[in-house]
Structure formats: C-alpha cells, structure tokens
C-alpha cells in the first residue's frame, strides 16, 4: 500500500466517523422539532447530544483538512467546483452551530422558534449537501485537462448526486432516531422507538436503491461489492432490531450501515477521487493528487501518535455522559442556592 492510499484510507475513516457521530447529531437536530410534544421534550432531545456535538463536528474539519494536506489538487478542485453548494453548507453549519448555544439564552418564543427551525433545517441540509457532493465525485463532473470545473452551479445537481444526498439524509435521520431511543425515557422514548423502526425500513429501501445505482452505474462487473451487501444487510438488521427493542444493537447496526454506505462511495471511486466526465484521463486520482512523500510521512507520524490519544478521551466523554436524559423528577426539589428550581435530571439507563 502506498502512502497515498494509506492517507486515502485515513480520510475515509474520518468521513465514516463524521457520518456516524455527527450523523446522529444531525438526526436528533432534524427529529427534535417533530417528535417532541412540548418544549421540555425538545430540550431533552437537544441535550442528549449537548456535550458531544461540537467534538463530532471536528471529524468534518479534520476530514477536510486531511484532503487539503494530503491531496492538495483534490482539495483545490473539489472545493472550487462545489463553490456555491459549499456556501450554503457553511451557512447551514453556522446557523446550526450557533443555534445550540443561543436557543435557550433568551426567553422569547419568536427567538426560540427561529433557532429551533435553524437547527432543524441546518441539520437536514448538511448531510444532504455532503451526500450530493459525494455522489458528484463518483458520478463525475466536467473537469478539464487543467483539473478545473467547466460547468455551473446547476451542473452539480446530477441525479445520482441528488439521490446520494437523500440517502445520507435518511441515514442521518435513522442514526438520530436510534440514538434518541437509547438516550430517552418514557413517552418520548416510546415514540422515537417506534419511529426508528419505520425509518429503519425506509433506509433499507433507500440504501438498496443507492448501492444498486452506484454498482450498476459506476462499477465494472455485475458481482456486488461486499461493502454494498453489508450496507443493505446491516440496515435490515437495524430495522428488525429496532422493532424488537434491541436498542443498542439497532444503533450499532445503523452505524455499520452508515459506514458501509460511505464506504461504497469510496470503494467505487478508488483509486480515483474525483471523476471527470469530459475525459477519463482528466480524472483526479490518489496518485496524481497526493502530496510528496515527505509531507505524508510527517502526517503519518503525527496521526499515529495523536489519533489514539484523541480516541481515548472521546470514548471517555461517552462514558461520562452515558445516562439517559429525562425531565424533572417529581418529589426531588432542587437543593442548594446553586441549583435551579426546575433542575432536570438524568437517570441510569
């Protein structure tokens, strides 16, 4: 395996990590407006991801920065090609990120409603847009000999790209639903549990369509790739397990489904990273876009030393915040002058 391929793999790992972890954050963001019956329940939903969403977004930053450092040509062409789409993506990221912190800061219904929808729409747009971008990489775009995009904004809306966007949106919603099932109690829990089964079966159909299209459209040969098979099987398992009340396994199988769907994009692409429809010869590949060996070696050392450390403390945060989140408990008034009279609590799962 060349260093370039190794870094391609690392980048895929970051994208997979992003779509699993930030995927359930998106799902919770999308669902919180719809599954909650009141303001209290909306707060519970948001607070299930409260401590972790910001760190989960870092996976996106690192996935992007890895492309910048390890595949500068890919980064340059992809980001300038997707220009206006990325502007929308940035706006969604800004509005959503700010909404987490600001929604509860002012007791005004209009303020809250604006940020609630900012969070919901932002959370839906981000996986949708990144999905479209991934689909476009694989579908191919008009890129000339100098690796410059020659189309316009509407050229980015390829049918396969759009379908890929919908796929990532549905999968993120599934992640959110199975995560919420794990983190809530009572009535809210029962509603999201039921919902995650339904979204699970929708995901099976959507992803089945996706891998079929991705395979027949862009892969040589008829025999399906193992990753594609795993994607569909994992989601069938997730939907079935969600229906049986195996919440932890349903969440885990959804994550496997997401990982293999993201994996499908990149296994079909490999060893290319961005396909040119103008001429296959103009496609961007790992080989023609990878940084020189020295840069990749430096990055390898840094990643091997520090990434395990990051994984350790990330895992620790999930252990610290492992409990389910519920509303205020009756009969336990808050004590002490520092706790609020309505201090809600968490209970052991």
């Amino acid at each position, binding site marked *: 395996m060349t260093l370039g391929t190794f870094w391609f793999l690392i980048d895929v790992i970051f994208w997979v990590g992003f779509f699993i972890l930030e995927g359930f954050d998106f799902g919770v963001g999308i669902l919180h407006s719809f599954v909650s019956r009141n303001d209290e329940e909306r707060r519970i939903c948001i607070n299930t991801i409260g401590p972790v969403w910001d760190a989960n977004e870092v996976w996106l930053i690192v996935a992007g920065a890895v492309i910048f450092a390890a595949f500068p040509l890919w980064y340059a062409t992809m980001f300038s090609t997707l220009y206006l789409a990325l502007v929308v993506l940035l706006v969604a990221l800004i509005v959503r990120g*700010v909404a987490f912190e600001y929604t509860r800061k002012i007791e005004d219904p209009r303020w809250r409603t604006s940020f609630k929808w900012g969070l919901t729409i932002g959370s839906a747009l981000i996986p949708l847009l990144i999905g479209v971008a991934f689909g476009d990489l694989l579908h191919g775009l008009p890129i000339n000999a100098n690796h410059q995009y020659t189309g316009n904004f509407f050229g980015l809306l390829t049918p396969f790209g759009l379908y890929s966007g919908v796929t990532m949106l549905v999968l993120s919603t599934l992640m959110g639903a199975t995560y919420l099932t794990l983190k809530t109690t009572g009535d809210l829990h029962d509603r999201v549990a039921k919902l995650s089964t339904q979204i699970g079966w929708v995901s099976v159909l959507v992803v089945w369509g996706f891998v079929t299209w991705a395979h027949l459209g862009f892969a040589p040969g008829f025999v399906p790739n193992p990753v594609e098979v795993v994607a569909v099987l994992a989601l069938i398992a997730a939907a079935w397990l969600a229906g049986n009340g195996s919440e932890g396994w349903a969440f885990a199988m959804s994550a496997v489904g997401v990982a293999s769907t993201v994996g499908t994009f990149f296994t079909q692409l490999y060893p290319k990273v961005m396909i040119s429809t103008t001429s296959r010869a103009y496609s961007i590949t790992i080989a023609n876009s990878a940084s020189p060996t020295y840069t990749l070696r430096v990055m390898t050392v840094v990643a091997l030393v*520090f990434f395990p450390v990051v994984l350790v403390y990330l895992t620790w945060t999930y252990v610290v915040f492992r409990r389910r989140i519920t509303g205020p408990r009756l009969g336990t008034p808050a004590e002490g002058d520092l706790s609020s009279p309505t201090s809600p609590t*968490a209970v052991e799962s």
Partner: protein
Amino acid sequence: MTEDLARWQFAITSIYHFLFVPVTIGLAFLVALLQTTWYKNGDPVTLRLTRFFGSLLVINVAIGVVTGLVQEFEFGMNWSNYSREVGNIFGGPLAMEGLLAFFLESTFLGVWIFGWGRLSKKVHLACIWAVSAGTAISAAFIMAANSWMQNPVGYVINPVTKQPQLNDIFAIFTNPVFLWSYVHVLLASLITASLVMLSVSAWQLRRRQNAAFVRPARLAVIVLIPAIILSMFIGSELGVVEGKYQPMKIAAAEAQWNTCDSHCSFSLFQVGGGRNDETPTQIIEVPSLLSILATNSINGEVQGLNQLQAQYVKEYGPGNYIPNVFIQYWSMRVMAYLALAVLLLGLWAAWLLRRKTLEKSKAFLFIATWAVALPFLINTAGWLLAENGRQPWIVQGLMKTAAGVSPSVSAYEIWISLCIFVLIFAVFAVVEGFLMVRFGRRELDETDDHPDTNDDESADMPALVY
C-alpha cells in the same frame, strides 16, 4: 476582478473571525484561573464569578468556531490555485490543528459545560485547562501556517513540477516570524480578554455596586499590565524580524519612500503620503526613533520603498511591489497608539486598586466599560498591517496573490457568497453583541438561573443545559 473580490471576502471573514478568536483564547485562560482559585478557596462567590465569565466564553466560542470553518473552506473555494501549489506545506499545520487542537478544545468544552457536578472538582478543573490548552495549540498551528506565508521556509522547489514542496517540518515551527508572531498573538488574546473582563466588572461595579466584581477587575489588571508591556516589546521585535524578510512591509508602515542611512526619524503623524503621494506633510517627527524601532540601532539603515521597488523589479520582473502605504502607515499607528492608551488605562487601574478606590472612581469605571472597543481595533489594525504588508504576494517572494485565485470561480459567484457572508455575519454580530451585553449585565446570582449547574456532587446530573 475575482482577485479583488476574493481578497475582500477573505479579509472580511478573517477580520470577523478574529473578533472572537482572541476572546476565546484569553477568556478560556482567565476562566481557568478563576476556577483554579475556586478549587483552592471553595468560596461560592468565586464559583459564581467562574460561571458568570464562563457563560460569556461559551457565547463567544459558538461564533468563533463556525467562522473558523469558513476560513478553512475558503482556501479551497477562493484560493484553489494557492491550495493546489502549496497545500502540501500549508495544509499540514491545518490538519494538525484539527487533530491536536480542535478535538481537545471542543471535547473538553462540551464536558466542562455539561460536567458541573457530574465530575469531581479536580477533573472538571482539568477540563477547562484542556480547553485553554486547546485554544493555544490551535493558535500555534494557524500562526505557523500564516508565518510560512510571510517568510516561507523548509521547502524546496521540485525540479520536475516546479512546485514548492515541504522538506523540513522543523523549519516551519522554528521560523523566527512564527515564534515572535505567535507570542504576540497570545499576548494580544490576553489583553483582549482581560479588557473584556475589566469592562464587564467596571459596568457591574458602577451600575450594580456589586463589590464582588473587584476581584475579576483585579485579576484582569494583573494579567493586562504585563501582557500589554510585553506585547509592545515583542511587537517591536516582530517588526525588526519582519523587516529582515519583508522590508517592503516595514518601509510602507513608515511611509519611507527613500532609503535613510541612519538616525532615521519616526513620523508620529502625517498628512498625505498615500500610494500616489510621495511628499507627505510631516506634522510631528521624533528624531532617530525609526532607526531604533526598525533595526534596534540608532545608526540603522531603513530601506525606502522606491529603492526596494527597483530591487524587486530586477529580482522578480516588472510589477508593483509596494503595498497600500496608507493602510500600512495608519494600521501601524492605530495599533501602537491605542496600545499605549490601554497601558495607561491599566496603570490607572493598578493605582486605584492599590489605593482601594477602584470601585468608587466613577470616571475610571465609565472609561473602562467603553475601553472594551480598543482591543478589537488594535487586533484588526495588527492583522491589516501584517496581511496588507505582504501584498502583492500571497507567499512572500514565491507566489503572487493574483496567481492564487480559483480559475473556475466567477466574479458572480463570489459576489453571491460575499453578500451572503456579510449578511449572515452582520446578523450574528448583532445577536452575539446583544447576548454578550445581556449576559455581562446580569446579576451575579442570576448566573445560576440556567439549570446547567448543580454544585452538589452527589445529586443526579444536570441534564438540560441547552
């Protein structure tokens, strides 16, 4: 056209981003200090102060993070030829920043916000220090990347592709421009955050007569005075270092059109002297000061813009190598003069604290409240000086700004993005300003209205922060 638009967009988004960055870096440190004090003395007032300023930190971080994302994306979106040419050098520090700093900062900030009462006091304290370390590490990588643009080191030109490629990562992190500018930025962050803390405390002392705020005021002054004095020396030394690698930047900052051999005088104020006006009217000059500032020697020679231009044309071919002199001259002076004002304010505060009359001096409290604008002006002027002074280069001596743009992105598209960013940034500037003022003016005890706290470690967890 696209170059100008792309530059405007980058300048606007970076200046905006850097309104929040120094507050985050500095305030994380100050809040960590406050919490450490509480950890040691167990005083409930110190805890309230920690949480009070902690909430300002969190409001500020939210915008700082998302505007930073815009910066990272813009390199690829607007400066794709730049990214393509030097990504193998410049991208490295950005990737390292994500892995080493962002994960640290955002993970432990989340744990800190939600961890009140859930974690032991010691672990919770460690979290805020991890956040503080994360912000400082993040700044290190960004400054290393920026310093490489000011003084490219640690690379060779590939004989086949003619592209620069990294060959010495240690050179990137021992770049003299990096070492001096990094310390300068950290000090600027401490100055900014301590003035924010001083300003809020002054308002509270003046309008609410809450004596508890003497404590953060004192902490702010203790941090502010050494930081501003050191920052002046470091900044001046940074000028000497940059003068070595970027003489044009310094000559333009002094509007020094012709070379001066020794005892060069420093212009305190002038009229005219902009790009096309070579004969400014000097209003006030200080003899020999420029030689001392620019070279650390009274006999030092300061090169003139005309001579440097001629030399650059010979070296790099025809073109205009002189940055906008008006911006250079005035950004340097705005930065230096306002820094002096901050120093005087700090000394005044120290004197009042010594006489134990700070909380009674209406004049000081009023001025200190409004002085919060100063660090933001100083920081912006400092970045204009550094970045405008590099023009017309995107990487000094290696690549021109015009060569770095994205060929496939049209002026239309940049207009659209520019308008969208300006609009959304303006909206969030209002929202953030409103929240900072509102939360800075709360009663100290109101801090705990938000049920994100539970000081009782045995109690069940605070679940709903958001």
